[in-house]
């Protein structure tokens, strides 16, 4: 059942569950963060509406900077703004930022230790029709390896809003991983969020398998749990720093783990969980994600099925691991 403490969306499994793009939650969160702290500034590289930064731009035009198609410059300019005491948020598609401008993020933001917040929209293959060029499925890997970087992958628009507000209040670089398409709203305004804290969203009495999911695929994991029974589901919204205590307890309780992410299996969230558990509490793990391929055009539903990340694929992985 849904963890009652977390006050999750009661209509989650209804056919007409409310759907909002995760990136929209970011846009609203940024406005809120800017209201709370006058040091917040917004930078965008010709994708203001698409990344939902237009909400901030309309409200705070003096604190908005349009850089044109220049993501490398955007990272460096943000570092300079942070050096003068600002809290810069930079928005683009994840393929371009933190993709194209990775070295600038490494040197001018992380090595310099400046608290720039990088919002990468259109992450994952569910970007859909735009095709493989625009589907970032390597961004967790390239951000989690950077010292000082916090990596957050919200499961829905409301969590994205909370994560954005929380990111503005930290003194570290943060990467916010955001999806393009409308996805089911899993949480509510009352659901708690804390950077670095994983939460068990679906609980059962005697779990045989534990699913650790991040991002919008958490919904597919919850559908699988509801269908299969005997499964617990954890929402790992903060990928780095990893909630080691929470994951250790979860692994001890469930004994077998399936990780679910819209990202390359290599170097992603599942890899990080495996690195940790291999050292602390080795258990069998199955990895749901993209296996060394690029994305392609299609509807989000078609692509999630094609790459084996839908509810049925998760159930199959659960069955596989039960035989191990």
């Amino acid at each position, binding site marked *: 059942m849904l963890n009652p403490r977390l006050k999750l969306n009661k209509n989650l499994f209804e056919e007409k569950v409310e759907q909002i793009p995760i990136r929209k939650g970011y846009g609203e969160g940024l406005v809120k963060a800017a209201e709370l702290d006058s040091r917040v*500034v917004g930078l965008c590289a010709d994708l203001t509406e698409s990344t939902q930064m237009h909400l901030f731009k309309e409200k705070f035009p003096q604190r908005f900077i349009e850089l044109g198609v220049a993501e490398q410059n955007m990272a460096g*300019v943000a570092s300079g703004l942070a050096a003068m005491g600002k809290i810069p948020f930079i928005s683009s598609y994840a393929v371009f930022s933190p993709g194209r401008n990775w070295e600038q993020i490494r*040197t*001018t933001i992380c090595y*310099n230790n400046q608290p720039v917040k990088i919002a990468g929209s259109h992450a994952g293959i569910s970007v859909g029709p735009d095709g493989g060029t625009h589907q970032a499925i390597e961004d967790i890997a390239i951000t989690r390896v950077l010292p000082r970087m916090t990596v957050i992958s919200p499961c829905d628009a409301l969590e994205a809003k909370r994560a954005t507000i929380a990111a503005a209040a930290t003194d570290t670089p943060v990467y916010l991983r955001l999806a393009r398409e409308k996805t089911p709203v899993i949480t509510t305004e009352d659901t708690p969020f804390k950077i670095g804290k994983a939460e068990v969203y679906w609980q059962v009495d005697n779990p045989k398998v534990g699913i650790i999911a991040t991002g919008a695929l958490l919904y597919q994991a919850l559908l699988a749990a509801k269908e299969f029974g005997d499964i617990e589901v954890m929402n790992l919204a903060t990928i780095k720093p990893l909630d080691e205590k929470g994951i250790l307890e979860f692994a001890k309780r469930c004994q077998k783990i399936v990780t679910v992410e819209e990202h390359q299996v290599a170097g992603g969230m599942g890899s990080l969980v495996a690195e940790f558990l291999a050292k602390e509490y080795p258990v069998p793990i199955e990895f749901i994600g993209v296996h060394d391929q690029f994305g392609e055009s299609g509807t989000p539903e078609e692509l999630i099925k094609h790459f084996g990340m839908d509810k049925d694929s998760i159930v199959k992985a659960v069955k596989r691991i039960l035989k191990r």
Partner: protein
Amino acid sequence: MELTQEKLEKLREKANDIRTSIIEMLVEAGSGHTAGPLGMADIFTIIFFHTLVHNPKEPKLENRDRLVLSNGHICPLLYATMAHAGYCPIEELKTLRKYGSRLQGHPWRERLPGLETSSGPLGSGLSQAVGMALADKIDHGLTSSRRIYCLMSDGEQEAGATWEAAMLAGKERLRNLVAVIDRNNIQIDGYTEDVMPLESLAEKWRAWNWHVIEIDGHNMEEIADAFEKSKSIFERPTIIIAHTIPGKGVKEFERDYRWHGKPPNKDEAKIALAELRTLGGKIRSEHQ
């Protein structure tokens, strides 16, 4: 502060002391860059001892100007100038590039108070300086007297990110921003116009709405004047294209691109130090 003949003479001596320190630290380190640091020593001297609003005893001074060194590989010069200005002991210069040193092979902001940015990867400094200038503009508007200085190499004019930053600074009319290009015509692989022709540099910068000043990068008065003149430009950022001689001060090193990325060995350092200490033969012996 007025630049009297007396002060100019003192600054020339200071530049010579800094060049001497550069040779001493490079020979001790056994690796590092020689030509660029020697070539930019006069400009750094003017900046740190005449132009910049700063306080070595209070590196975080609230109203200080900002200095961004983009081509971090000439940091022996930055460290030597900072040491002579009082940011760290001159004796510490001998630790350059060594384990545990605050003077990393390329600048690491957090290691040494007074460093505004980390640098080394080329083409990123101007972006950071533009960010600083924008922050100052957001906070203090068009009447701010703060200056943001960015020092670049000519080689990094080949990096696309430099031009991304140049465009934004022109668009935002950052009058508080002054960039300097060390136009010494060399880079690691050879002479710039052979590796990748850059001319006409001045026209390129004008095209992005910058005010361009070209100077002799070894004429102390011209250097100081250029920084002063930039303050009167209102609607545009200023770029100072400083024509310099790589390896300046040591005849044997001058204009030879092979000195871009290597240090002098002990014998070469001896020749260089003798030349610097006698001001190229102007005084009779290095003991005077």
